[in-house]
């Protein structure tokens, strides 16, 4: 599993003992992204850390695919979240979801990095890799951010079950053992969670666009 169980979910080891949807200041708190950004704007580092837990994995993975190497992708993550910290006061939830805003920052920063790299590459006579506006011609990257946002909006119970299945790669039986839930309940909750995600994605899709 590429995510290794981390990313938009709690990175293992950082939140020892904080089960998904469990007690404590887990990154699975149901605080909406938009509320966290507002807190970031007022200087709340914990809120930034929470957003980082939710989205850094996606930004990093996106960076690796767009930029091609791990080091530059790490720089992109730092760049993007520094930008979130500095510009959080400018974020307007009436215009776009946080994920959409974050996606735009990611795309623009990645494009900037590619342009810088291309400028260096041209010196040795190679073709440019990517220009502004070409970062996501098919909309695939944008869609991933939307799915991440939809996942972050699910109830802790639903999110937990999907995270365990998709990001930690557990089978239904393993989820049952890990959560002490009967196997039948795990199966029906998995169905309910996928249904809720589908519904949330539809709602998000309907209200999306001023800004995208």
């Amino acid at each position: 599993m590429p995510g290794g169980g981390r990313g938009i979910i709690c990175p293992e080891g950082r939140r020892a003992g904080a089960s998904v949807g469990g007690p404590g200041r887990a990154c699975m708190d149901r605080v909406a992204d938009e509320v966290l950004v507002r807190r970031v704007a007022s200087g709340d580092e914990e809120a930034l850390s929470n957003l980082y837990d939710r989205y850094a994995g996606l930004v990093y993975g996106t960076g690796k695919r767009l930029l091609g190497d791990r080091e530059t992708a790490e720089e992109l993550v730092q760049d993007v979240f520094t930008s979130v910290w500095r510009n959080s006061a400018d974020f307007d939830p009436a215009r776009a979801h946080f994920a959409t805003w974050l996606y735009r920052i990611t795309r623009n920063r990645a494009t900037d990095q590619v342009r810088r790299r291309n400028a260096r590459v041209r010196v040795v006579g190679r073709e440019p890799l990517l220009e502004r506006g070409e970062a996501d011609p098919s909309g695939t990257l944008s869609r991933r951010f939307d799915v991440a946002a939809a996942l972050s909006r699910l109830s802790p119970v639903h999110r937990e079950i999907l995270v365990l299945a998709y990001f930690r790669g557990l089978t239904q039986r393993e989820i049952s053992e890990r959560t002490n839930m009967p196997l039948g309940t795990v199966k029906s909750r998995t169905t309910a969670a996928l249904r809720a995600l589908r519904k949330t994605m539809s709602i998000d899709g309907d209200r999306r666009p001023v800004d995208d």
Partner: protein
Amino acid sequence: MTEHQELRNLLGPYVMGSLEAREDRKVEGHLRECARCREEASGLRLAHERLLDLAYTTEFPPLKPEDRAVGAAISHRQRLRRTAVRAAVTAAFVFVLVVFGAILVPDLSGGGALASATLTPTDLAPDAGGHISIGDANGNTEVSLKA
């Protein structure tokens, strides 16, 4: 619970390919007959594919924000905030002293006496300091403040 409901509850693991063969066959048989469940399965499959795609893309970077550039940005903003608070406290402290001095001036200067005070640091304004003195200069009151 009806069989329809039972099988409907298995649609999630079904689209994920997580059912055992026996259950899988039962669900497939049901889907051939039930249009509602086929439609439901189609929606769940879309969610499943989107999640797979997201999971495939998501990787966690090795560093936390406080470790590098974001941490530097945070520290910078904190420093700015601390500096602003200290400056405000110092300014308020000096303002109070000046006002207090101005009120006392008539009494202090009435007899031609000089008054002075030393500004001392406080917990909130550890860098504050200075000296204020009040005296008579050719019939006018002279207030001297060094902060």
